[in-house]
């Protein structure tokens, strides 16, 4: 499935029913987004979803579909191996229809990756093994394909604060559980962000340039000088305002002469 097909298919899904947002991701990498959120928030959503999937996985649970209802809309999340499709829709009753369409899309996408593997010269066994191991060939955008470039590898997440680091061995706090009516216990508020890292910071992957090249520095200096000179000129232009040739004397009514009482 090339990027155009991916975009057109998910855009069609986006226009179906009462859907007002679609986000497709692989682990924490956003592959497609058409949602009423800024890209940073979408990326944050993908990361949180990856954490949630990891949490269920470490519990030996296979939560492959989640649906939530909020005051602002409904959220459906379909998990399939490393792929996640998030759909925002307004009408709650559409959840099963939307889930069916979402799951069909993910299956199609996985099959297209399998076909791409075969096209790239892999044998059927190798392609099947790659699919099972979730080796996903990086999608190449058309303009990058023309330049002969490939997408950079996904950056790695690093937990910033150790005290809230993701710990696969950390059990759920038993005090959080409510018990049977025979043993009443105080309600415990779910801790915010427990088991998840508080913050994530993306660091560039190995091999990425961290310092500008000398050529780049030279170019940037020239650009800066040009901007500076143009900035000075701009300032000079605006020190002496130029009036239009025809100016009204005043927009105010003429002053009234006071009456003198004798």
């Amino acid at each position, binding site marked *: 499935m090339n990027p155009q097909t991916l975009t057109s298919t998910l855009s069609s899904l986006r226009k179906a029913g009462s859907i007002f947002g679609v986000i497709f991701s692989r682990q924490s990498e956003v592959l497609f987004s058409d949602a009423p959120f800024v890209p940073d928030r979408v990326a944050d959503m993908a990361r949180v979803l990856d954490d949630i999937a990891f949490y*269920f996985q470490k519990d030996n649970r296979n939560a492959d579909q*989640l649906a939530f209802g909020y005051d602002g809309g409904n*959220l459906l999340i379909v998990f399939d191996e490393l792929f996640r499709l998030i759909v925002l829709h307004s009408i709650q009753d559409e959840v099963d229809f939307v889930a069916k369409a979402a799951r069909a899309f993910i299956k199609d996408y996985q099959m297209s990756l399998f076909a791409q593997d075969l096209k790239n010269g892999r044998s059927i066994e190798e392609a099947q093994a790659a699919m099972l191991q979730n080796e996903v060939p990086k999608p190449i955008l058309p303009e990058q394909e023309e330049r002969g470039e490939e997408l950079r590898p996904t950056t790695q997440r690093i937990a910033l604060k150790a005290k809230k680091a993701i710990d696969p061995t950390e059990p759920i706090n038993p005090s959080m559980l*409510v018990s049977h009516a025979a043993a009443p216990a105080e309600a415990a508020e779910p801790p915010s962000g427990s088991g998840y890292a508080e913050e994530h910071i993306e660091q560039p992957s190995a091999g990425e340039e961290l310092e500008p090249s000398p050529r780049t520095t030279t170019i940037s200096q020239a650009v800066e000088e040009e901007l500076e000179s143009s900035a000075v000129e701009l300032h000079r232009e605006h020190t002496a305002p130029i009036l239009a040739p025809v100016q009204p004397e005043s927009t105010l009514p003429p002053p009234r002469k006071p009456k003198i009482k004798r």
Partner: protein
Amino acid sequence: MSDQTENSEALEEAMAKQRPRFFRAGSGVARGKTGREDTEKFAANLMSLQECALLLGERLEMNAVAYAVSYDHDETMGFCFDQNSDPHNPDVVGAIVNRRMPMREFLASVRDHINQ
């Protein structure tokens, strides 16, 4: 002892007929009619789903969770808030069923149980 027998019979019957087993949680207490183990299972799943709902809702700036439903292997589990309960301390009514029930139908059955 008779209560435990009744609970296990209710659980067996619900599992055999693949009917939802309903639970109610509020004020730190969860109640069910299918035994302590099943109720604790619901309570654990409830906490997980509520946590997920809150985390995702924060990102979406949507905080008032109305319901949550999940598929886990061949099981459907979810909850709704009881709108007839105290709004400052609302009760949650949920269910577990040992099949992948359509979510719309699942939520309808939970709401029917609330209104009974």
